[in-house]
């Protein structure tokens, strides 16, 4: 966990309310075979698209003197264009784990239960993809493929 981060309790009233009417990820085991839940697949694919965009931005920023790099919120909502400011170290700490993504506060609800907040920072929240979405997030991670 990054210094200054607050660990998020997984069972908050907010989260419970966000998950109302959706499948509970805690009760769902990642599948090793068979069909992937289509909603989880869509969430994972959307997140992966935002993450690919952020990788490209990070590359450009490496040449500049921008210390708080502007990144795009990696939530599952396709219309979201919220900009989050992170240092390189902050972004890399999240990016090192294929299941973790940066979100604006409260945006994890767009994943409809397929993401849970695990760290709260002043400028962003770290969410973890769970269940089928977590498995797919790992599969869609280009860095992991390359490594």
């Amino acid at each position, binding site marked *: 966990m990054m210094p200054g981060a607050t660990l998020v309790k997984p069972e908050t009233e907010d989260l419970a309310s966000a998950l109302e009417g959706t499948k509970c990820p805690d009760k769902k085991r990642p599948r090793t075979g068979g069909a992937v839940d289509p909603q989880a697949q869509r969430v994972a694919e959307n997140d992966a698209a935002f993450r690919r965009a952020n990788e490209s*931005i990070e590359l*450009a920023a490496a040449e500049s003197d921008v210390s*708080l790099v502007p990144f795009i919120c990696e939530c599952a909502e396709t219309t979201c264009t919220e900009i989050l400011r992170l240092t390189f170290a902050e972004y890399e700490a999240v990016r090192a784990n294929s299941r973790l993504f940066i979100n604006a506060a409260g945006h994890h609800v767009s994943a409809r239960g397929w993401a849970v907040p695990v760290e709260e920072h002043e400028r962003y929240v770290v969410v973890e993809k769970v269940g089928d979405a977590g498995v797919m997030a790992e599969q869609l991670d280009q860095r992991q493929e390359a490594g």
Partner: protein
Amino acid sequence: MTGERGTERERRISLNEAVFRRMNEQLKALAEQFELDREPLLLVCECGYSECDRRLRIPPADYERVRGEARAFFVVPGHELEDVERVVERNRDFNVVMKKPGISSEIAQATAP
């Protein structure tokens, strides 16, 4: 501003602008991927201030037209840096600036999408 300090300042400004231009390219690519590119694009100001977080709404056709010129950038009106760029187009919501010849123009072209 002249000399080495001026050149270094121009270089830093240009590299900052390149970050915001890259971000806008990515926002546009995402809009296309998610079929949201018929509406004005919600982009970021491409000025040289690294801490700028102003947003711009730009019609896709205008974006494509301006992006075709490597030395041109979108900025919020008032965010122009007159020593390195000049305003070539004024709109209600955004201005288009063109890099003046020199290091900033060279970097703009080298970092063009």
